[in-house]
């Protein structure tokens, strides 16, 4: 498995530092910029290398209309017999608009019996979420879903 480098974060920090130097009086925004599709591509490359990714075998389940982006149920299933000869080694989930492109990376082996897991994720905005599975034969497969995130109507004041 490729070592994970937080390249998106270090790139953002360099860009912000450069902006601060060049921007003169401009206040450096405390809130980091949202991730971009390019940063997601970088994050994917950092995790799976240059291998081609094919659509198929993977099913990513997310509600198309999200009530609250703080907690979005998410299920990934990959078609696989999960035998020693043919199993899913890893499943990664990426997003393109959160401050950070990685969501979760799961490592599996034939003892799983079924290549499927569920969790609850955070989505900062309407965006595309992508799941990529790595199979024991070295191939990569993916699925993606476009999600619309509505915001809560009545926001409370921050707790002191």
């Amino acid at each position: 498995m490729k070592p994970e480098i937080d390249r998106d974060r270090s790139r953002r920090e360099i860009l912000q530092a450069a902006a601060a130097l060049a921007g003169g009086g401009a206040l450096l925004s405390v809130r980091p910029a949202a991730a971009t599709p390019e940063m997601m591509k970088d994050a994917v490359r950092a995790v799976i290398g240059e291998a081609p990714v094919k659509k198929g075998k993977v099913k990513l389940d997310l509600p198309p209309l999200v009530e609250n982006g703080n907690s979005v149920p998410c299920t990934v299933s990959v078609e696989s017999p999960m035998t020693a000869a043919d199993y899913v080694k890893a499943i990664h989930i990426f997003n393109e608009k959160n401050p950070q492109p990685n969501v979760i990376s799961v490592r599996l082996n034939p003892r799983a019996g079924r290549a499927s897991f569920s969790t609850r994720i955070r989505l900062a905005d309407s965006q595309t979420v992508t799941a990529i599975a790595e199979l024991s034969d070295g191939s990569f497969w993916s699925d993606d879903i476009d999600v619309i995130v509505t915001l809560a109507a009545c926001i409370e004041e921050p707790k002191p």
Partner: protein
Amino acid sequence: MARALIHVPATAKKGDVIEIKTLISHVMETGYRIGVTGQPIPRDIIDDFVCTYNGEEVFHAKLYPAIAANPFITFFTVATESGTLAFSWTDQHGATQVQTAAITVE
């Protein structure tokens, strides 16, 4: 110790694929939220979760800030033999919490 809720079937038939559900209390502070002071609240997340079955890893997840507060993770494993499932959550500071559940496999 953070409160954790684990659901493992108490018994299973050998070879059955069983579903395991885990839920742990943790704020999963992203590091991007601005506090009342105007400064970002520092990141504080669980970043590693692993399940072993009689000592052998059967599930591992690397978690990022995009995992919702009070991480809920469900997955599957083959009921191979009776014994102990151990669940470990490790935060970004390296602190680990382990909880176990017994299973009887016929």
